[in-house]
């Protein structure tokens, strides 16, 4: 069971070599025509290409294609990197952030490619996750160690930005001393057991909600908070991402420029046929089928799984052992939901609150029948979503008929 | 029912096409309760057939007189009359059978097959067709009861009409003549009956 322990490791950050070409992904294929750039155009670092899409390098646009990644189809922009970064002038340093209003700060940060949610009203508790949510991931603790001096200022920033009453630092039990030194008098400490899935934000939120059910919660990853601080200090956009790369040859924390294709980090000669590259957690992440997949701000971990370790689903009949129910962190009756989903009884799934599922993958991890439980749940969620839309359509049609 | 309504069709449909209780799944209560022995099953079947035949004839002949709103009440009165006649006659001439069937004779009144045929068939069709329908369904029901009670008696008691037919050292499978045995036997037979047409249509 130690497989699910959240690893601890002291690593040095390795600066990944600067890429020769970056890939900037834009979700969906519709945005393609609305892009304000042309092939051959020169981009500067931090330039806005589309609302929410920024250039992370300075260079020339080589092509605009479409590409498929596990979650969706993307419009991708390939940029050939020039030698020197030229930064967008619109981003200015604001070391003393309290001189600006929170709204102005937010605009500045988002202009600098941070991507903080615009809707910050009604938040009274913010927690900063400094515990790695997934096994194998080492990014959060690395950031915590690296930037422990800046943390208390970061808490002040987030408190000011959201006008929250309370800031909580979620930290693994082993890093307790580090945490209590960092919080100062600004934040509270929440200790997390180093075992998956305790570090997932949903479960941290659940723990807070158990104490205070009326709290309106939001969370921010520690790396993002540090990025925000760096932007305000240096006046440069966020262009680097820390990624744990776990290959057969070893584990390293790389600082990678956003948009770098993963083939630049994982050399092809390290891979065998039928290996599996997992972007994200071994329990939640998606298998990568395209080595051109760019590193984005959401990627904390890239894990190369050897052929021998790849698990094949059996999808045998459910034996009703109840293990999935026992391990489910949000108390779902997984066995029932998945059998209902198997036989297309999606209303029953909805009755059993399938939408509360956080897709942590523990049920399928433990399932002795080797059933693809997460997929059944995703299917149910998706069908419920679509059927609700259909229902809405039906009711509107009926009402127009009645009107006539 | 697209087929032409002929006496022979109405008579024979009860033997397979809508064979009760396997196809109609009606009349299960006596089916489960009185099929311990072949004698009981057969007696129950014949009593039901008698009631079914005469109630169908009478209801079909006076169907135009009965107002719609009181038709169920009228049917029940007519059916009940025949049931009581059956009960009295059985008591007078076949007392041992009467003792075994006991409460299930009066309960023929609420056997869904009879009211079902009265409502679904006799109240809409002429006398001769109704008679054929009643007799056919009744005999089909008798056949089913005979079949299931034969299985239960042979396995559960090792006898057939009370005669020992299994080998000497046969230990009766008493579960079959208990109530749970009836449920399992009926369930398996229903499953088989559903399997056969599936197989047939699959072959086509």
């Amino acid at each position, binding site marked *: 069971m130690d497989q699910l322990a959240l690893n601890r490791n002291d690593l040095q950050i390795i600066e990944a070599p600067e890429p020769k070409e970056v890939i900037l992904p834009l979700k969906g294929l519709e945005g393609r025509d609305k892009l304000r750039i042309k092939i051959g155009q020169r981009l500067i670092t931090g330039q806005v290409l589309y609302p929410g899409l920024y250039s992370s390098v300075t260079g020339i646009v080589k092509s605009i294609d479409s590409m498929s990644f596990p979650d969706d189809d993307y419009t991708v922009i390939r940029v050939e990197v020039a030698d020197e970064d030229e930064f967008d002038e619109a981003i200015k340093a604001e070391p003393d952030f309290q001189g600006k209003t929170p709204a102005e700060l937010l605009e500045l940060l988002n202009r600098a490619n941070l991507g903080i949610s615009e809707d910050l009203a009604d938040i009274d508790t913010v927690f900063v996750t400094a515990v790695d949510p997934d096994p194998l991931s080492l990014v959060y603790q690395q950031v915590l160690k690296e930037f422990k001096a800046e943390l208390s200022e970061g808490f002040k920033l987030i408190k000011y930005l959201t006008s929250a009453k309370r800031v909580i630092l979620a930290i693994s039990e082993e890093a307790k001393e580090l945490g209590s030194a960092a919080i100062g008098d600004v934040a509270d400490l929440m200790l997390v057991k180093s075992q998956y899935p305790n570090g997932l934000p949903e479960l941290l939120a659940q723990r807070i909600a158990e104490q205070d059910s009326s709290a309106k919660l939001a969370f921010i990853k520690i790396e*993002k908070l540090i990025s925000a601080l760096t932007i305000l200090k240096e006046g440069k956009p966020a262009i680097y991402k820390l990624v744990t790369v776990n290959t057969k040859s070893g584990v390293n924390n790389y600082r990678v420029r956003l948009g770098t294709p993963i083939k630049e980090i994982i050399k092809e000669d390290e891979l065998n046929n039928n290996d599996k590259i997992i972007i994200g957690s*071994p*329990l939640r992440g998606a298998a990568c089928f395209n080595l051109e997949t760019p590193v984005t701000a959401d990627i904390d971990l890239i894990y190369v799984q050897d052929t021998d370790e790849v*698990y094949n689903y059996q999808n045998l*009949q459910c034996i*009703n052992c109840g293990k999935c129910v026992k391990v489910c962190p*949000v108390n779902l*009756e997984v*066995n029932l939901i998945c059998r209902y989903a198997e036989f297309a009884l999606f209303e029953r799934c909805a009755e059993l609150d399938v939408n509360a599922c956080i897709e942590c993958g523990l049920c399928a991890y433990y399932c002795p029948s080797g059933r693809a439980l997460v997929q059944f749940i995703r299917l149910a969620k998706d069908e419920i979503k679509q059927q609700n839309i259909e229902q809405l359509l039906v009711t509107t049609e009926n009402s127009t008929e009645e009107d006539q | 029912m697209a087929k032409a309504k002929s006496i022979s069709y109405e008579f024979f449909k009860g033997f397979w096409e809508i064979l009760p209780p396997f196809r109609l799944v009606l009349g299960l209560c006596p089916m489960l309760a009185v099929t311990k022995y072949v004698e009981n099953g057969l007696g129950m079947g014949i009593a039901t057939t008698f009631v079914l035949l005469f109630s169908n004839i009478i209801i079909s002949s006076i169907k135009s007189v009965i107002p719609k709103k009181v038709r169920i009440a009228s049917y029940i009165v007519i059916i009940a009359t025949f049931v009581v006649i059956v009960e009295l006659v059985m008591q007078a001439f076949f007392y041992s059978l009467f003792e075994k069937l006991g409460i299930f004779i009066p309960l023929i009144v609420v056997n869904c097959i009879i009211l079902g045929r009265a409502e679904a068939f006799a109240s809409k069709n002429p006398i001769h067709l109704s008679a054929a329908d009643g007799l056919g369904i009744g005999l089909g029901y008798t056949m089913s009861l005979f079949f299931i009670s034969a299985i239960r008696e042979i396995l559960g008691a090792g006898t057939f009409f009370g005669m020992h037919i299994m080998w000497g050292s046969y230990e009766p499978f008493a579960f079959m003549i208990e109530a749970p045995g009836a449920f399992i036997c009926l369930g398996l037979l229903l499953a088989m009956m559903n399997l056969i047409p599936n197989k047939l249509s699959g072959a086509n």
Partner: protein
Amino acid sequence: MKLIVSSPPHWHAKIDVAKIHLHLIIALIPAVLFSVYTYGIHSARVIALAVATAVISEILIRRLLKKPVTIDDGSAILIGLLFAMIMPTSTPYWLVVIGTFLSIFIGREIFGGLGCNPMNPVIVGWAITRISWPNYFNLDLASVGYNLDFNYRYPLALLKSGGVDQIADFALIDLLLGKQVGGLGSAAAIFLVIGGVYILYRGFITWEIPLSFTVGVLAMASIFWLTDSSQYANPVFHLLTGNVIIGIFFLATDFSSSPFNRWGMIVFGLGCGILTIILRIWSIYPDGVLFAILIMNLFTPLLDKIHKKPLHLEIKEL
């Protein structure tokens, strides 16, 4: 370069159905060995026949229904073994064959196979044969012809017919050590406890049902015992005799026919324990464990409704 693509999770605990059943079978081995040691070749005969019948009938039924044959998951072997464990040594060969076949066929396959049975298949097979051929379940006769170094009367039958005075010479330690007449394996209390603790420790079954079952038996027996100890046997006697121990660890915990929620399991176990004692005291059967489990199996869908509602939190990521 070919890469494998599949959906998450990409890890697995590497526990499969066959492994669970294998360990359940391993846990039964002490009791099996003990029964072979005590009753010799007849015990081995019943066990071997039951296991063989279970496996063969599963193959035949699955072939007939055109379903994949899944005997390699070990569940048929487990059913055969458990069925043998609760039968008397003297069971004739045909009864073993019919009982095991019914366990597999009526108990499980007609409901859809492993995981779909609403009642414990072993007990279904047992109950059908128990009703049909009660004479062969007379455990007092089962020990005839053996030179046993302990009281060769079935304690529960003695309790039923003669009352508390009759069972005075059963030392509780003897009952614990398996020096009592009972089902083939179900009499070997201590060996079943060893096996049960093993599977509990390895996590193949959970603690809820065994614990609450035990508590149910002890509590209900204590209530009777405390009201009139001259008429009712002491609680530990009830715990150690008959099929209670095998029921606690191996029969009540059958995955498919027991609840999967914690509180459902606890109510289920308590119900089994309470009904066991009630049936022992008021029914015409000397032992009530198997019927108690069968009755509680029917409540399983209802007990599954005892469930904490999932928490649906909306949290915002900044």
